């Protein structure tokens, strides 16, 4: 936080250069997050634009109790969810127990570029996509996800399970790594 304290103070004063500096520092990482929560480059840029506007308009509320990049990331995720909310329909699901599980090696994704992984995530149904991002990448619990998205915890779990199986199937189809198959 200390390394960005001066920058935050200038942004609170609406210093255009400080705002641009903040954008240059954090936009690449936040944009990658936007891309994971949206279906297209256009939508991702919309989310990034709206997120930064919200960040600049509420930066005086940043107390420094958490890291600046975590605070900004939360704003981005909330913005992405609020803008995409109407598209977050949920598919009816088979139960988790019915599925075949595939174990992946630690380097299973090493051969994939960011754009390829992004394409896989974007091919998920919108609700699954958001929940996958929140649980697997951001580290939210299903309970937190349920509160955030105003759904039931069980729905979060089942949608995540769906997302997980779909991604495993995509990676399996690519056949780029050795895997073990285990029936539960």
């Amino acid at each position: 936080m200390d390394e960005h304290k001066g920058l935050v103070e200038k942004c609170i004063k609406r210093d255009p250069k400080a705002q641009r500096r903040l954008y240059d520092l954090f936009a690449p990482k936040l944009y990658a997050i936007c891309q994971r929560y949206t279906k297209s480059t256009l939508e991702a840029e919309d989310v990034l634009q709206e997120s930064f506007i919200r960040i600049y308009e509420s930066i005086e509320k940043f107390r420094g109790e958490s890291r600046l990049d975590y605070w900004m990331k939360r704003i981005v995720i909330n913005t992405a969810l609020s803008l995409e909310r109407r598209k977050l329909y949920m598919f009816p699901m088979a139960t988790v127990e019915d599925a075949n599980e595939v174990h992946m090696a630690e380097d299973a994704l090493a051969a994939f570029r960011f754009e390829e992984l992004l394409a896989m995530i974007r091919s998920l149904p919108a609700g699954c996509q958001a929940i996958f991002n929140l649980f697997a990448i951001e580290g939210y619990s299903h309970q937190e996800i349920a509160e955030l998205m105003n759904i039931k915890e069980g729905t979060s779990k089942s949608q995540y399970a769906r997302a997980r199986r779909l991604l495993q199937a995509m990676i399996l189809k690519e056949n780029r790594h050795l895997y073990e198959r285990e029936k539960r």
Partner: protein
Amino acid sequence: MKEKKDNRDAFEDIWGKALQDAESQPSPEVWYRIQKGLNRGKMHPWLIVKLMAAASLVFAMGLGTYTLFIQQNETSGVVAVSSISDDRELVPQERLSGEALSLEDNKADRALTEQGIDVTGTIKDLEIAPIEIDPKAFIADTREREMRDSAVPDAVLAHPMHLPTRLSAARLAEIESRSEYFIVPELIHKKKETSTGTVFLAGLDIGTGVFNPNTQPAAGLASFSEGYFAQLAGDVRSLDRLDMGLLNYAMADAALPREESRTGFSYSYGINVGAHIKNRFVLHTGLQYVHARTVTTTSGYFTQSESAIRTPALTSNAIANFGSARFESSPSYEVDNSFDFISVPIKAGYVLLDQKLSIIAFGGLATDFFLNNRISSDKPGISSTSNGPGDLSPYRSMYFNGLLSTSFNYQLGANYALMIEPQYRRSLNSFTKSDHLFSSDPHFFILNFGLMYNFK
């Protein structure tokens, strides 16, 4: 955030490691749009300049009108200032030539004769007999409101160009030492010039100014969103078709478009024809092309069902897209909302000042024929759309404006005049159809520049 009870395993770790620190560069346009979003609601500096220019012009009009019109009455209409350095300048040329004039031909001589002065003979023979003339009689005092003819010696009045005698050098020196004096012979009998007969004029003009569409939700609706939602839900009173099956969006969750329009600018060009009738009355008409543009903020777009083309979603083009497009919400963005008209003004004017600089006050009516409304955005992936008059347009094909203006005309030569005309226009009836769910009563402040030719 991580909890063991959620059964995380290597799958989440693998994906987390692959994507948690991923970075990607957005396009440079994103920063530009962020800046625009931060400046939203602030008055654009250019608009401040325009408003200041308009205020300065109104002030100049008032000051100019006061200076030219009111103070004009206080001057004597002097045509020349001259200090006489030579007595001969005051001597009528006829006398210089040495010819004697008969009393019948020279009223001045008659007047002098009545005063006991012998005017026969030539200059050479005329003895210098200075006449005591009150200097004030020869001085046109600019503080006087009107020339007092009675103060001028009768001899001068009788023949303005002639003085019946020479003033002595001493007398002249005395006058000069006191003040300047003016040769005003022509103005003594100068009649006020008035226009007689009808004079026809024609000219070209261009104009630029400020345009405010003045859009409001229709009476009974709290906001544009409510009006918009009502349209999309099928409450379109002017249409018969209600094909809700093609309108695909979650009505309960739809983020309704936030729409607001700002004051924009306009320009126009065209021809003017007119006639000066009687003394101070004029009639003008013409034909003008008017282009008006405003910036509207919205937060949604239409995606055409067949072509997947995206266009900005405004209340004004909702009906045109009804049944053929899907509405989607988006972060707020700005669109250019421009209108094209053909305008036919008819105005009557009164000449306030009729000099080399003339001032005419106008009032009248302009009939505007709506040609086209174009909605465009520089947002990537959003195409522009145009709508003309017709059933699907919320705008009338024709509406009326009242107008007030003041025209300043500066004469160039005998027939040409430069014209500057600040003009205010306000709609007399709504630009939108009466059964539509928003209203628009535009008004303009335009500064016209023109070149006029009068057919004298």
